[in-house]
């Protein structure tokens, strides 16, 4: 009870802090210089129609590389944590049933296709590697649900994630060598604005991100599915 009261008190005090922040806050009437720069230069410098994508993949590409690494780390550590728990008691999950199995066969290719569409078009439309990767992983989840007993190929996933990750870093380094700096997308021609093959390396990078994110999620899901019920 005292704990709750103290917690409430602290939360109220924090609320006071936030309230003073809000009362001092006034929305910008115009774009600030950074945002204005992006609005004015992105199309002609990077050739990407989706400014958010341009920022994510190129201007703040280092953040995104870190972000991908976060998923990579999480997948690795979740694997590590759960590896020690695996395979103690033979594991007899209930199969998913005919309906789910058939549905899976129908839906999985479509889901995978949608995922690819989303990340390949990331520089033009809302969406991108993370969203596309998540969609890919949802396809994997469906497979796992339909047939839990099926041995899951960690090897394939591992190769995909390593390949995508390594290529991502190499493209970044290519930017350093061939263009203006690490992760510069102008190692490839910018192409015609608004087309699929445009914006230099952005679609390539976003595809790699999509693959990698999909692989990481799939790996995490697989690790989780291999743990037993406690």
């Amino acid at each position, binding site marked *: 009870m005292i704990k709750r009261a103290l917690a409430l008190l602290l939360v109220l005090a924090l609320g006071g802090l936030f309230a003073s922040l809000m009362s001092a*806050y006034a929305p910008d009437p115009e774009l600030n210089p950074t945002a*204005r720069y992006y609005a004015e230069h992105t199309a002609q410098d990077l050739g990407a129609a989706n400014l958010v994508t341009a*920022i994510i993949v190129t201007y703040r590409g280092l953040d995104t590389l870190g972000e991908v690494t976060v*998923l990579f780390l*999480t997948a690795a550590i979740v694997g590590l944590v759960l590896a020690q*728990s695996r395979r103690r008691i033979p594991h007899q999950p209930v199969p998913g049933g005919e309906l789910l199995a058939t549905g899976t066969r129908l839906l999985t290719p479509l889901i995978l296709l949608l995922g690819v569409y989303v990340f390949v078009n990331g520089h033009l439309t809302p969406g991108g590697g993370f969203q596309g990767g998540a969609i890919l992983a949802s396809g994997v989840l469906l497979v796992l649900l339909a047939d839990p007993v099926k041995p899951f190929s960690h090897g394939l996933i591992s190769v995909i994630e390593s390949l995508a990750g390594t290529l991502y870093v190499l493209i970044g380094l290519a930017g350093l060598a061939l263009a203006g700096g690490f992760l510069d997308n102008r190692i490839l021609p910018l192409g015609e604005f608004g087309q699929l093959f445009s914006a230099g390396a952005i679609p390539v990078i976003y595809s790699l991100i999509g693959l990698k994110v999909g692989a990481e999620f799939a790996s995490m899901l697989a690790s989780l599915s291999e743990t037993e019920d406690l």
Partner: protein
Amino acid sequence: MIVQVALATGFVLILIGIYGALTQRNLLRMIVAFTVANSGVNLVIVAVGYLPGRTAPILDATVPAAEAAARIIDPVPQALVLTAIVIGLGVTALMLAFAYKLYEKRRSLDIARFSELKW
């Protein structure tokens, strides 16, 4: 006005999350509390980037590059929030794995029971 509402909602979510994390002793509930707080943070981030009466920062026929600066909202917080979401997801997944591991050892999810290390 809508900015203020969004900000206030975000802050309230954060406070709810913090309160939950401080008072719930169950590991899973604590994790849920953090996801609530994270949503609040993400909401605040997006709200800060919002400019009244403008549109999404994607250039196309309706928003030509020349008018972009006057028509779009700030794209930076949108980019940041994506990163924040992904990182939040990573941390949440990790915390869940840890909670699983702790439960496996103790058959308990009460955080007060994991206090052998102290002083």
